[in-house]
């Protein structure tokens, strides 16, 4: 025999050759119960890890994820007469054999001997099938390799050598969500994924950047600096358009444009969304439609008292068209518009066309809110205003393309934060974001919603979310919400509630072959490099090489 096998014999089987345990029960819908082998201790397992189950009667291999870990005993009496703390020997004998560990495994994928692509499970392994810890090779096979449309976003827990690659084409095909408590890393994951999407060229992105997280550099708590998308793609694939030029300049952002919305461009539909933020009652909102119809395009300036049209307004009251009290209440609330520096009297610019044009050319747009990000109403107003109009153009373009009179528009991913403010059950039915989430990719527009309170989002919208990347959540309702419409993933709740507080996420859905808990990829120079950005030394080297070839010296 060879040297190797002698050595193997001497050392005993390698850890991964020994089964963790055997399947003793369960079902496809509720998952499998596995009795853990006495040689293993539950103390070394972790929920969220992968296991491989070799079918006992076939050559089929199943992949599963550990969703719960427990203790059991063959005899209920044991709990009444356990070994005392000093009875080490008894404890050692009993544990593993009649007092043993169990784990709950959700089967996810299966792989037949003659296939190389795993498929979703349709059955389960038989009784006493052996369960093994998945090796890096097993997991690697599931998540495939990184390429132009598969982007590396993190590594499975305890498997630093394995890359989890998001299938970006599938990711943008349906709306997606990033969830998690505050400070868990939502913005970092989102920025990472966006970098992947932009590099792949599969879609343009329109980012409503509430907290100035995406465009230019961001500092973390410890003062470390991270590059924004505009810096990662200096070649023009990303434009930053700001609402607050002063703040953007102060932050040192490179700005490609300033958004100005003219009062005359605002329609009652845009204001309606702000009802709850501005304290507009149902009656007032109805009145808005009437007022804009009556007063024409200058309706906002008139209501703000800038147009010398007091008599016109008084007439409406006198004719009984509107209550004086309602009118004054609306006018008081409209004072809000004056405080929004990006709103200007008059017709404003053609910002929408400009942005649509950029998006359609393949340039992603970061809309930086500056200090206006602290005003929810400003965020909701602008996001709605632009999205409604851009969506309209997409619909038009798509219809033209369908009629053979134009090109297909370039797919678009719209990123919104605090998404529950746009998608709560009361308004999701009639807002543009609810519409986009529901119509799927019919018009090549999908959402990437970032939210810390998914329970506030309409159920129907949630169930349309194709890919969910969820960081730690501890509120029961939020946890329930991220699993809504995901079949058989209920067992993953345990996994979710036990994520680390930062940089860990459960990814499930459309863009991954099976749910996976990852430590998200570090957002650092190696990521910059992987999307093609050369820095410092590297850049100098390249410059030198460039000049050599240019001047032949």
């Amino acid at each position, binding site marked *: 025999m060879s040297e190797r096998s002698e050595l193997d014999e001497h050392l005993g089987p390698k850890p991964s050759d020994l089964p963790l345990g055997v399947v003793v029960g369960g079902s496809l819908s509720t998952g499998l119960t596995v009795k853990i082998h*006495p040689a293993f201790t539950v103390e070394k397992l972790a929920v969220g890890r992968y296991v491989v189950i070799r079918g006992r009667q076939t050559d089929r291999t199943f992949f599963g994820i550990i969703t719960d870990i427990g203790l059991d005993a*063959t*005899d209920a*009496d*044991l709990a009444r*007469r356990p*070994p005392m703390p000093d*009875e080490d*020997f*008894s404890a*050692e*004998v*009993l544990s*593993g*054999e*009649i007092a043993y560990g169990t784990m709950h495994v959700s089967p996810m994928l299966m792989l037949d001997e003659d296939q190389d692509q795993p498929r979703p499970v349709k059955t389960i392994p038989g009784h006493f099938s052996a369960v093994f810890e998945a090796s890096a090779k097993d997991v690697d096979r599931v998540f495939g390799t990184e390429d132009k449309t598969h982007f590396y976003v993190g590594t499975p827990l305890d498997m630093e050598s394995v890359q989890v690659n998001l299938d970006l084409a599938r990711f943008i095909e349906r709306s997606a969500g990033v969830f998690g408590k505050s400070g868990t890393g939502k913005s970092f994951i989102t920025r990472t994924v966006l970098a992947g999407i932009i590099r792949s060229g599969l879609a343009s992105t329109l980012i409503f950047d509430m907290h100035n997280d995406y465009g230019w550099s961001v500092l973390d708590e410890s003062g470390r600096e991270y590059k924004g998308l505009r810096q990662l793609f200096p070649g023009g694939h990303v434009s930053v358009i700001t609402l607050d030029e002063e703040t953007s300049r102060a932050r040192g952002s490179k700005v490609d444009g300033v958004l100005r919305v003219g009062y005359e461009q605002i329609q009652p539909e845009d204001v309606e969304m702000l009802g709850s933020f501005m304290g507009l009652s149902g009656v007032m909102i109805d009145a808005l439609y009437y007022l804009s119809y009556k007063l024409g395009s200058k309706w906002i300036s008139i209501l703000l008292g800038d147009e010398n049209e007091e008599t016109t307004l008084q007439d409406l009251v006198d004719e009984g068209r509107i209550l004086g009290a309602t009118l004054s209440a609306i006018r008081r609330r409209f004072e809000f518009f004056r405080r929004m520096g990006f709103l200007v009297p008059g017709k404003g610019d053609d910002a929408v066309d400009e942005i649509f044009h950029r998006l359609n050319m393949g340039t992603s747009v970061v809309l930086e809110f500056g200090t206006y990000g602290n005003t929810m109403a400003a965020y909701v107003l602008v996001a709605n205003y632009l999205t409604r109009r851009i969506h309209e153009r997409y619909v038009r373009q798509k219809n033209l393309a369908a009629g053979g009179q134009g090109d297909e528009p370039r797919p678009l991913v719209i990123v919104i934060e605090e998404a529950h403010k746009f998608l709560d059950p009361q308004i999701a039915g009639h807002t543009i974001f609810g519409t986009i989430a529901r119509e799927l990719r019919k018009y090549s527009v999908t959402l990437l919603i970032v939210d810390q309170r998914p329970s506030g989002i309409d159920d129907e919208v949630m169930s349309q979310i194709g890919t969910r990347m969820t960081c730690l959540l501890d509120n029961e309702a939020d946890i329930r919400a991220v699993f809504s419409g995901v079949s058989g993933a209920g067992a993953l709740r345990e996994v979710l509630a036990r994520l680390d507080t930062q940089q860990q996420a459960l990814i499930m859905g459309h863009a991954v072959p099976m749910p996976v808990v990852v430590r998200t990829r570090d957002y650092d120079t190696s990521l910059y490099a992987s999307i093609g950005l050369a820095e410092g030394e590297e850049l100098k080297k390249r410059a030198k090489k460039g000049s050599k070839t240019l001047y032949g010296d």
Partner: protein
Amino acid sequence: MSEKAVLIARVTRCSTRSFVGASRLPEADVPTFGSFCKARAQRGQSEVIGLIYDIRIEDDEMARQIAIAADPSQEQLADNRVSRLIPIEISCLAVGYSSQDGYAYALPPQPPMTLDDVFALSRDEVMAFTQSMDFVPLVFSAPGLPADELLAACLRYSAEVRPQSEQRAFLVEAGRVCARQLAGDVARLDRLVRNLAP
């Protein structure tokens, strides 16, 4: 084999499940309750491995009379113990057999023959035989034996023949094998495991 095989008895009665050997006075340390022995079977093709579960000395009229005598002399006692032929009966449970292929942990195909020699198993043989614990179920399933005490004695003895450093691990493993058999009776298991504890 390094040690010389110690003859402890000759077979007087036997079945495939057990055999009884008789001998004169026992040596100081063999045989003992819970130790292993072996006897030829199948005309020497195999050896039955026995586990000693009972050692018995029958009384007779003479012994009874000496016992109740007012003051028996030392000579009388010694004479009775050494010179008289009172058989000592050693009962053994068949727990396996050896053949060319090594040990099998099952009842032997045939029992030993009457008056075959019964030898104690050497330390090396004990170690080899107890490499596997598959004989334990045979002990539990034998009717009418003090199985728990017998196993405790046998397993402790089997541990002692091993190097110091391996003894504990051996006993833990042995305990687990017993636990598997007694999974439904925690009270009994508890006693047995305490008896095994090093």
